[in-house]
């Protein structure tokens, strides 16, 4: 479904993605893990057309992407951002937020589509005419997911979709995402700083550092802690909580 090869990207003089290769089969779920500045979000932003200066090949649904994304691309692939407080228009009702993409794409029948999208993310109709500030963080993230789903895409690009949420709400949103992938046959690329979240959600995982993929692993390998690269081992150990001796073994990777 998604084939990325030799992807390089620049922010002015900074070379932020270096020869990134990713392959995700249809209905697959691919996880990108890394710390701030590793380039994990930039991969998603490049796919979705938010980065101008890039080179390499991105094939989505066997179609090569150029400099500009057309409408058809956005019907196929939608992005969900990290912060549900920043990604919803504060002065638009949920109804307007969800109707807008339907109108842009001229799909029609927006009324039924809004009801269905809300239903898919487990929100009842009473939410439809509320404003984002009247919703909790978890409910907002559900709206952001509904907004992505309303165009019936095949691909969701998920940029830290639960890192702004409490753990109990995170569990609900992760379960929702798993169910949607199963029921709608979606393909995911999920970016997170949390190794456990990605291990839980994804079949294949890549660990990024300074714009490069330093290691790839399957969820099974990650479960057994079978990581080779010292950076990924360090990340794996750091996920285990505070241990003075482990901290002393850390090396800086800047």
């Amino acid at each position, binding site marked *: 479904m998604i084939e990325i090869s030799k992807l390089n990207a620049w922010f002015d003089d900074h070379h932020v993605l270096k020869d990134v290769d990713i392959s995700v089969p249809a209905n697959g779920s691919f996880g990108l893990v890394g710390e701030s500045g590793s380039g994990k979000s930039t991969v998603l932003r490049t796919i979705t057309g938010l980065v101008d200066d890039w080179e390499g090949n991105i094939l989505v649904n066997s179609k090569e992407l150029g400099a500009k994304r057309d409408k058809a691309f956005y019907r196929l692939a939608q992005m969900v951002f990290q912060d549900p407080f920043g990604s919803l228009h504060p002065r638009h009702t949920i109804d307007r937020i969800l109707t807008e993409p339907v109108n842009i794409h001229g799909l029609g029948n927006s009324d039924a589509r809004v009801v269905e999208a809300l239903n898919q993310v487990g929100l009842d109709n009473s939410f439809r005419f509320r404003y984002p500030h009247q919703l909790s963080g978890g409910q907002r993230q559900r709206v952001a997911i509904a907004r992505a789903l309303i165009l019936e895409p095949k691909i969701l690009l998920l940029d830290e979709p639960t890192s702004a949420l409490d753990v109990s709400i995170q569990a609900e949103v992760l379960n929702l995402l798993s169910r949607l992938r199963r029921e709608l046959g979606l393909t995911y690329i999920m970016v997170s700083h949390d190794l456990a979240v990605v291990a839980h959600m994804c079949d294949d995982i890549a660990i990024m550092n300074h714009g490069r993929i330093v290691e790839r692993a399957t*969820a099974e390998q990650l479960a057994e*802690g079978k990581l080779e690269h010292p950076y990924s081992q360090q990340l794996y150990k750091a996920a285990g909580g505070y241990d*003075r001796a482990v901290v002393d073994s850390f090396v800086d990777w800047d």
Partner: protein
Amino acid sequence: MSNEPLLTVKNLEVTFNTPKGEVNAVRGVSFNLGRERLGIVGESGSGKSQTGRAILGLTAANGRITADQLTFHDVDLANLTPKQWRKVRGARISMIMQDPKYSLNPVMTIGDQIIEAYREHHKVNAKEARHRAIDMLEAVKIRDPERVFNSYPHEVSGGMGQRVMIAMMLIPDPELIIADEPTSALDVTVQLQVMAILDDLVRDRGMALIFISHDLQLVSSFCDRVLVMYQGHVVEELAASALHEAKHPYTKGLLNCLPKMDGDHGDLPILEREASWAEG
């Protein structure tokens, strides 16, 4: 580790007057703190931060604090004048906030801010204060203290900024540190490195620490004792090492709903909240 209590909190209540009526953020929290590390854990809105802020008298103006007892040694924290507070805050109890981006002064060099913190409580000349500040930056493992001393907050990374915060809060040598999500804005490895610095300093100087966080696992690996808060109440108190023996369904639910690296892609257990938990 704990002997005679440093801090005694009995039946602490924090109530806010809002346009929509009264909100009880903290409802009857009690604990004693010795020279130990106490973790306060809870989700957003549980009252964990408001508990920490109430101890330091930092509750917002529309809030009201009541307590049967709120004492630090023999100081009654519930009835201090602003002047008396200045002798306690920073000097004897100090607070490390979550995000250095917002808690450092953006238009003052890091060195000047640390010196200001030190000279507020110690009568020393500028040269001595500068010397102390550089020592303190070294103590928080900043490799090039001279450069950081002369930098502005925006010129350093998040992890570095948080070390600066720790340096600034620890330089007056307080007895009690309240750290409110001190590392939540940082990457995991940096987070642990900053915690190690805090760990060493608190240990070496024999300080007491209240560590407020949403991360139950992290807190229990760092503290001696953990209070779990839910809707303003402490629902469970645990020895940090006995986390797996947690009895309260909320604590258990919090632990269970974390994704694990066990290769299982099945659904995560959902925390089913019960109204009775909020009764305390």
